[in-house]
């Protein structure tokens, strides 16, 4: 037992040496300190050194320090308390030594007889503490800068210790514990109540939720403070307090407010877009979600709930799938979007889920953020699209059309299923440009390349029909159509188009074309908008255009502009009732060849209703030959008519001649015969002499008649007499000169008006003869009662010149003599000089020049002779 105790004591001594704890004793009476070896070693004094109360040890830096120690001990003795002091001494080498001095007095009968204590070298600890202090200062500085402070809430005392920064803000000395009231003094009145409630809840829940409150500084400035807290538990797991940090987040809050507003907008947007987001913690299996989603799920906003709640509406058949997806996400730490159904109000809706996995630094999953979007509409559209696509495929297959898409940025070419079928390529084959290009018939490659380049450069693509050669060598004819998509700056981003197997159509077309070509007449096939789609060789021959030049152009190219208006009604009629008919515009229809020559044509339109509209076949028959034959016939007819007219005129003349011969020639001849007979029977010479004067009269009459006839005949046989521009005025003047004597004798007044027209292209002698005859007649057959007044005037009637001679003379009874007024030797008055030659000659001359003469007359009123020139 004793040995055991001794062993323990030895062990303690060893431990003390390791912990550098020494023991000492002060004999109060003697005033002497006894130190053990360890104490001496700590203080770096020789073993068994005895220190006296009044004398400082040699290694103590000054007397004051030693006196301070003695005072502390004396106080302990007076107050009969233990002491515990940390002291710093400076060793002879100048090294600082921190020691902990702990001790208590030994009392006997109330008097302290000695003080025993412990001495520990705490230099290392002190250095650490100093370092900590430095760090704390740095922290305070940081706090200050970051508007950050921290405080400790001790629940046992319900007091709070604040960091220097907070102390300064609150206005309390640093290090002095404060009450909650004091801490919350500066909080915005509106926020105080809920802040206190929040603290109470924190104690109740043993959990400090983040708290945000406003704080009003002494200078009245309002700031927003965020408080984070961590509960402090003792070893018995009892809550003893909270370690909190407060941060001025005014700036951030401002930003947050902005964010909040945006978030509200976002929420609205979310609801509109029918999506919500949620966050799932795989460890707790709890989920929080956005407000709109909370409403959908009928959970409280801003509260977490178990995952099962999130899955409550998921279609029963999709629940497992949903879970699988989540597990997969956690496992792979990557969010693969998925689609699931939910049932809301008995209706199935489609939800597309996207998201993101948040991991910590170690790479373990913190939580999964998901966005669920109601894509029912899209899905519906998609389903429609799918079915449409099926239809399209079907349609493509039926119509042998395929479509393609060529993304020029990625150079990826996508073909529709049917396009593969058209090319007879395996649908899984990768498509590159060469896939298409190599299939193009070698002879067509250049043409296709040109078109594609044209599309690239000008963004214009005309349809191109070309041949492709399949792997088995068979040839198909396809029609390629393409268009481009460009970005904002006009760069090509993609080409899309269709390709149709038109082999059959082509064959049909070729057949049709063959028929068309063999048609004997020029034929055009017109499509929508009267665009020429096809023409045959005859049309090429007729119009001089090549097929390439004409196809694609409007048919109007071939129709003279001048016929546009006249065609309009026919066009309308045809379109209103399209049936086979000839173009009838009420006159000859012409078309125009390349050189601009008009060709008389007969056009038959044949309509063909097709799904896309109306196709018109236009059969054009060149009727130039017929027309020219017709023209010839027409000319012949005109000639004949003219001839007939001439003949009629000649007949009239012949009639005139008959008249002349019977009356004007036969009369003197018969007179001669009678006179000769009488001469034979006469016996008396005197009588016979008298008879000879009669012979002379008859012969001279006969001579005059014959001369007139010769003159008339020569006028009639000279239809193409020389013509000159002659002035009516000049001719009248000349005539007046000839009749000067007559005019003076009769006191005739001749007036004229040639203002409307003063000249005529005519034979000079004839015009003069007309003037002389008519004015001469007017003077000759003047009224017996008054002087002649003669008006000569010209007028334009229907573009023809009419020259009139009006007198106030005797006049002629036209009822009685109208039919023979212009006959030879016709006289209507018993006038001594009336010979009946003037008007006959005038008429003959006028008619010889192609005109006519008319008369208006009344007995004793006067006559008007009018010459109608042609």
């Amino acid at each position: 037992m004793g040995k055991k105790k001794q062993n323990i004591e030895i062990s303690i001594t060893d431990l003390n040496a390791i912990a550098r704890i020494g023991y000492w004793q002060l004999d109060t009476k003697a005033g002497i300190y006894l130190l053990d070896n360890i104490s001496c070693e700590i203080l770096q004094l020789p073993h068994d050194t005895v220190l006296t109360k009044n004398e400082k040890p040699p290694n103590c830096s000054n007397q004051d320090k030693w006196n301070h120690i003695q005072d502390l001990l004396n106080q302990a003795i007076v107050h009969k308390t233990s002491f515990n002091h940390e002291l710093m001494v400076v060793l002879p080498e100048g090294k600082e030594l921190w020691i902990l001095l702990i001790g208590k007095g030994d009392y006997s009968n109330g008097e302290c007889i000695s003080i025993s204590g412990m001495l520990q070298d705490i230099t290392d600890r002190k250095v650490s503490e100093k370092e900590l202090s430095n760090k704390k200062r740095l922290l305070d500085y940081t706090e200050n800068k970051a508007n950050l402070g921290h405080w400790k809430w001790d629940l046992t005392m319900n007091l709070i210790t604040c960091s220097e920064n907070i102390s300064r803000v609150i206005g309390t000395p640093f290090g002095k514990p404060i009450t909650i009231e004091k801490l919350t003094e500066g909080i915005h009145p509106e926020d105080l109540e809920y802040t206190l409630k929040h603290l109470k809840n924190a104690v109740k829940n043993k959990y400090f939720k983040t708290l945000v409150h406003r704080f009003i500084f002494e200078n009245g400035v309002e700031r927003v403070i965020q408080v984070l807290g961590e509960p402090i538990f003792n070893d018995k797991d009892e809550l003893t307090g909270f370690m909190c940090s407060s941060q001025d987040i005014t700036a951030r809050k401002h930003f947050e407010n902005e964010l909040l507003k945006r978030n509200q907008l976002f929420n609205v947007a979310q609801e509109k877009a029918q999506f919500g987001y949620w966050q799932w913690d795989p460890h707790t299996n709890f989920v929080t979600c956005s407000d709109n989603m909370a409403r959908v799920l009928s959970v409280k906003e801003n509260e977490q709930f178990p995952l099962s709640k999130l899955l409550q509406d998921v279609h029963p058949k999709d629940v497992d799938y949903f879970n699988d997806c989540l597990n997969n996400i956690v496992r792979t730490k990557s969010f693969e979007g998925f689609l699931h159904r939910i049932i809301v109000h008995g209706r199935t809706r489609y939800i597309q889920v996207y998201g993101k996995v948040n991991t910590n630094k170690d790479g373990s999953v913190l939580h999964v953020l998901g966005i669920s979007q109601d894509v029912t509409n899209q899905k519906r559209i998609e389903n429609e699209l799918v079915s449409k696509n099926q239809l399209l495929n079907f349609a493509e297959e039926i119509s042998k059309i395929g479509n393609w898409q060529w993304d020029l940025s990625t150079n990826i070419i996508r073909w529709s299923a049917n396009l593969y079928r058209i090319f007879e390529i395996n649908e899984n084959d990768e498509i590159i440009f060469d896939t298409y290009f190599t299939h193009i018939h070698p002879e067509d490659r250049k043409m296709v390349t040109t078109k594609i380049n044209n599309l690239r450069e000008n963004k214009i693509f005309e349809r191109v029909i070309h041949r492709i050669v399949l792997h088995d060598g068979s040839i198909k004819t396809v029609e390629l159509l393409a268009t481009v998509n460009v970005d904002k700056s006009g760069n090509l981003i993609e080409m899309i188009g269709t390709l149709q197997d038109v082999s059959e159509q082509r064959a049909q077309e070729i057949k049709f074309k063959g028929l068309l070509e063999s048609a004997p007449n020029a034929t055009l096939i017109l499509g929508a908008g009267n665009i020429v789609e096809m023409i045959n060789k005859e049309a090429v021959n007729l119009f001089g255009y090549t097929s390439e030049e004409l196809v694609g152009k409007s048919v109007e190219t071939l129709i003279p502009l001048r016929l546009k208006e006249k065609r309009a009604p026919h066009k309308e009629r045809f379109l209103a009732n399209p049936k086979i008919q000839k173009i009838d515009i009420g006159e000859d229809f012409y078309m125009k060849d390349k050189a601009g020559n008009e060709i008389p044509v007969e056009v038959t339109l044949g309509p063909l209703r097709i799904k896309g509209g109306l196709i018109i076949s236009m059969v054009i028959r060149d009727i130039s030959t017929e027309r020219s034959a017709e023209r010839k016939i027409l000319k012949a007819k005109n000639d004949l008519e003219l001839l007939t007219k001439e003949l009629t005129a000649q007949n009239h003349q012949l009639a005139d001649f008959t008249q002349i011969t019977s009356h004007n020639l036969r009369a003197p001849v018969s007179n001669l015969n009678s006179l000769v007979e009488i001469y034979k029977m006469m016996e008396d010479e005197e009588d016979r002499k008298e008879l000879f004067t009669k012979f002379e009269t008859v012969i001279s009459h006969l001579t005059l008649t014959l001369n007139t006839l010769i003159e008339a005949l020569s006028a009639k046989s000279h239809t193409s007499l020389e013509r000159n521009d002659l002035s009516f005025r000049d001719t009248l003047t000349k005539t007046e000169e000839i009749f000067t004597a007559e005019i003076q004798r009769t006191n005739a007044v001749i007036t004229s008006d040639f203002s409307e027209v003063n000249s005529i292209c005519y034979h000079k002698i004839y015009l003069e003869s007309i003037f002389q005859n008519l004015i001469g007649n007017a003077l000759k057959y003047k009224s017996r009662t008054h002087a002649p007044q003669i008006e000569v005037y010209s007028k334009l009637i229907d573009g023809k010149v009419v020259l009139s001679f009006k007198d106030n003379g005797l006049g002629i009874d036209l009822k009685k003599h109208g039919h023979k007024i212009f006959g030879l030797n016709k006289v209507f008055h018993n006038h001594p000089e009336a010979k009946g030659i003037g008007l006959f000659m005038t008429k003959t001359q006028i008619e010889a020049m192609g005109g006519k003469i008319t008369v208006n007359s009344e007995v004793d009123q006067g006559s008007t002779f009018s010459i109608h020139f042609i």
Partner: protein
Amino acid sequence: MQNPFHLCIIDDDDIYRFTIIQSAKFSKIEHKTSVFPNGEEAITCITDNLNNPDNLPHLILLDIDMPIMDGFQFLKDYQAIESKLSRPISIYMVSSSVDPEDIEKAKSYTSVVDYLSKPLKSDKLKEIMERTLQNLNV
């Protein structure tokens, strides 16, 4: 003969009138002659003597072609007064016209006994004068 044969010539041609007068003389038939240069003067004279048969001719030689009023116009007017005549008159148309139209037209007038073309020979004149006389006596 109280009332000698009355020959009337309506013609504007004075040579013709002269030859007829001469030829009539050669016929040795007692007669008197009246002459009118146109239809108008002749018809005026007849109209004036409708009820005076002594002044009316027995035979008229009517020309076609005359100024003022020709032979046909005369016939028209004559037809209008023919029924009022106290005694019939034989009218012969004598013209140089050989125009069938003229001949047809002349013969269409019932008043016209015949159409004769010029020249009218002496014996022909004698013949129609005799025939007219015969008709008168019957």
